[in-house]
């Protein structure tokens, strides 16, 4: 044990990242022979242990970093290295902690799938990419892992690649993420030209380059270079664009609901800790780089995202789509957290959200698993993910029901749950921020409060529709309803996550987020005053609001007293996700398609036309020279040949062995001789 404790955190962090990579390579080499996924699961458990060791060493200690030279271009040396501070070690621990239950759960959930060996391979790659992303000390390397995360998610979303919808979804995810990656890349380029380095320690460390940078007289001045102040804003927006695509911010959120085509266990991983967390993590890492304009844009986009996604979640029927929109909405909260300068609150919400969202997805997965099982057994045709087919499930799956309720309470932000702490931290900070800024800015906290109540409503709707009243497809099934509790291998990880959804893990004081260890560790100095009244009033508003909408949802969905018209305009807009996909299809996709058709036409007719004319010209020249060669050059040679042939034939014809021919020749010679004599 001493041996283990003496290993440097750098080493353990390195191993944390490398072990899933080894598992990925092993699975890639072994292929179909290993379907158990044991190696991948063990690897992630080792990673978890090592990340825990790293975390314990690094948390609230001096930041550590280590690097080696990667390559040199001119005088610039690029390094590859690891940066361990509170933020990265926390993320490292979070990613591996979430990945462990998902791996264990997958063993049961994905059991018997034909492509399961690929599943384990991709899952290990995904974990490797995300773990690598959080500890890299260099923006360029972060970008590499950022791309790897995107690629692995592409593979996992399209895991059931024979399904057309899955293929479309992973294509969409990949393309939308490309837009964000472009922003990230532009940001890196600007940072490099301004600071001459991409090393995070040099940039953001105490007394680093960013700390010595100032904006004076419309110039953005760093020790290395200076440029127009507008570029500071452009940099911030570029990086934010990257985070918008990865963390599904409006209007680049469109890929996330479609990404539900992947296996549910993958969705839980994507939504909890790996993919979407990357954007928030990037924003927190780069926080000192953002000026007020960028922060305001982030806050506005975050608020918009939270509102719109919560609205879209209200009328969805697909159980996974509701959760997807709730993720987008919660990511909006985190972005608001960044935008108002409290990135510690954003990280805290990311942390708590990871656990309860992962649990929500695993519970939904269990429900879908059982519904699909029921569908296969009863040989009836119904959608196992559709809420309209469920109902009364608490009688059949009591443990799943309890766990789902805990997670839903956490998402809705009820007291004593982790969600209460983190969501309040963002809303209260937003209120304090708005008080300091001015009355117009009050829109942000007020919207967030409304969104929080909407969140409580839609998750209540999901819970009551799925688990209360009677099973709606009972008439289809006849007498026997073959619905059971999930297997133990699926329940244990869910129990673990359920424990992580309540307050003691994060703060011993269940009502004040200021005591949470995460907030203490990250410790951001707020530029505005603490408002004690807000600390009392806002949680009360939230709790009362959430409780009342749960009662409403209970009356509407559990007791069946639904007062609204199901096909009303508001419901339709929400169900169709604001027609955003259709808008994108019509405006963006069609214009791109038309542009490509136009370029095809230009290429085909103008560029190719020129080439064709040229080709014809060359062909004619070739034909002419062919004719010349054939008739003039060859003709001359052939004529000589023919003359020689004729002469030869003539000479030959005299030598035919006939006496009289010889006599002819003699006679001819005599005649020639006579003529010669006569003419002489």
């Amino acid at each position, binding site marked *: 044990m001493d041996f283990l404790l003496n290993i440097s955190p750098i080493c353990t962090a390195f191993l944390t990242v490398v072990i899933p990579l080894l598992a990925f390579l092993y699975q890639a080499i072994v292929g179909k022979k290993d379907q158990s996924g044991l190696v991948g699961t063990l690897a992630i458990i080792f990673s978890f242990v090592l990340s825990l060791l790293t975390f314990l060493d690094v948390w609230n200690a001096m930041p550590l970093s280590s690097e080696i030279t990667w390559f040199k271009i001119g005088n610039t040396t690029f390094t590859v290295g690891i940066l361990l501070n509170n933020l990265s070690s926390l993320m490292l621990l979070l990613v591996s902690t979430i990945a462990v239950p998902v791996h264990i759960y997958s063993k049961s959930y994905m059991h018997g799938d034909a492509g399961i060996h690929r599943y384990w391979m991709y899952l290990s790659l995904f974990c490797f990419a995300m773990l690598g992303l959080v500890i890299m000390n260099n923006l360029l390397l972060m970008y590499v892992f950022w791309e790897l995360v995107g690629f692995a998610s592409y593979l996992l979303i399209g895991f059931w690649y024979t399904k057309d919808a899955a293929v479309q979804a992973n294509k969409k995810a990949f393309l939308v993420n490309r837009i964000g990656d472009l922003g990230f890349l532009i940001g890196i380029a600007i940072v490099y030209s301004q600071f001459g380095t991409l090393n995070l320690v040099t940039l953001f460390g105490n007394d680093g380059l960013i700390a010595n940078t100032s904006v004076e007289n419309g110039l953005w001045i760093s020790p290395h270079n200076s440029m127009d102040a507008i570029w500071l804003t452009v940099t911030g927006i570029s990086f934010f664009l990257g985070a918008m695509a990865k963390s599904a911010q409006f209007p680049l959120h469109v890929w996330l609901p479609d990404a539900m085509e992947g296996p549910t266990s993958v969705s839980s991983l994507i939504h909890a800790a790996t993919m979407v967390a990357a954007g928030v993590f990037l924003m927190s890492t780069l926080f000192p780089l953002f000026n007020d304009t960028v922060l305001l844009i982030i806050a506005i986009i975050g608020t918009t995202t939270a509102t719109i996604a919560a609205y879209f979640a209200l009328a969805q029927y697909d159980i996974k789509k509701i959760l997807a929109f709730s993720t987008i909405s919660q990511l909006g909260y985190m972005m608001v957290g960044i935008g108002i300068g409290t990135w510690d609150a954003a990280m805290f919400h990311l942390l708590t959200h990871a656990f309860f969202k992962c649990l929500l997805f695993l519970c939904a997965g269990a429900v879908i698993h059982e519904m699909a099982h029921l569908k296969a057994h009863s040989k009836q045709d119904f959608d196992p993910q559709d809420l309209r087919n469920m109902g009364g499930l608490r009688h059949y799956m009591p443990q799943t029901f309890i766990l789902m309720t805990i997670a839903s309470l956490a998402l809705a932000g009820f007291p004593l749950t982790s969600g209460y702490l983190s969501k309040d931290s963002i809303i209260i900070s937003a209120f304090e921020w708005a008080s300091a800024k001015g009355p117009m800015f009050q829109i942000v906290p007020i919207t967030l409060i409304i969104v929080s109540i909407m969140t409580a409503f839609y998750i209540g709707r999901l819970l009551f529709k799925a688990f209360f009243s009677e099973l709606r497809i009972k008439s289809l099934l006849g007498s026997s309803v073959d619905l059971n509790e999930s297997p133990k291998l699926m329940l244990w990880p869910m129990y673990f996550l359920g424990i992580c959804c309540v307050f003691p893990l994060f703060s011993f004081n269940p009502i004040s987020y200021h005591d949470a260890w995460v907030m203490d560790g990250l410790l951001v100095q707020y530029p505005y005053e603490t408002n004690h009244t807000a600390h009392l009033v806002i949680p009360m508003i939230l709790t009362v609001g959430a409780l009342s909408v749960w009662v409403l949802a209970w009356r509407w969905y559990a007791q069946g007293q639904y007062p609204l018209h199901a096909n009303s305009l508001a419901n339709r807009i929400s169900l169709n996700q604001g027609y955003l996909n259709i808008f994108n299809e019509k405006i963006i996709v069609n214009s791109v398609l038309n542009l490509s058709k136009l370029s095809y036409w230009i290429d085909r007719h103008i560029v190719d036309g020129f080439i064709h004319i040229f080709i014809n010209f060359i062909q004619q020249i070739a034909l002419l020279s062919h004719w010349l060669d054939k008739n003039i050059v060859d003709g001359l040679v052939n004529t000589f040949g023919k003359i020689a042939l004729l002469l030869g034939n003539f000479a030959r014809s005299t*030598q035919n062995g006939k006496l*009289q021919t010889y006599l002819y020749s003699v006679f001819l010679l005599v005649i020639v001789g006579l003529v010669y004599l006569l003419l002489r």
Partner: protein
Amino acid sequence: MITLTHFLVVSAFIFCIGLYAVLAKKNAIMILVGIELMINAAILNFVAFGKYDKINYGGQIFALFAIVLAAAAVAVGLAIILNVYRYYKTVNPDQIRELKD
């Protein structure tokens, strides 16, 4: 008045007929006949030019010798033709091509 020229013209005609026979006939006997005609044309010339030698009559005497020699030659020629016929079963000169390599 019959002059020397008339003799020479007749002699040339006969020579030409003989030459034609030698070159064109497809029968060895006829070729031999052609040869005789050519010899006789020459003999006619001897006789015709004999008017310039009225002392020794060299022309006439030479003609007599030539006639005798021609008779002998015809005898030899016929003998050869007979042998050729025995050997090749034909007297058509076109079908006898042993001269060819």
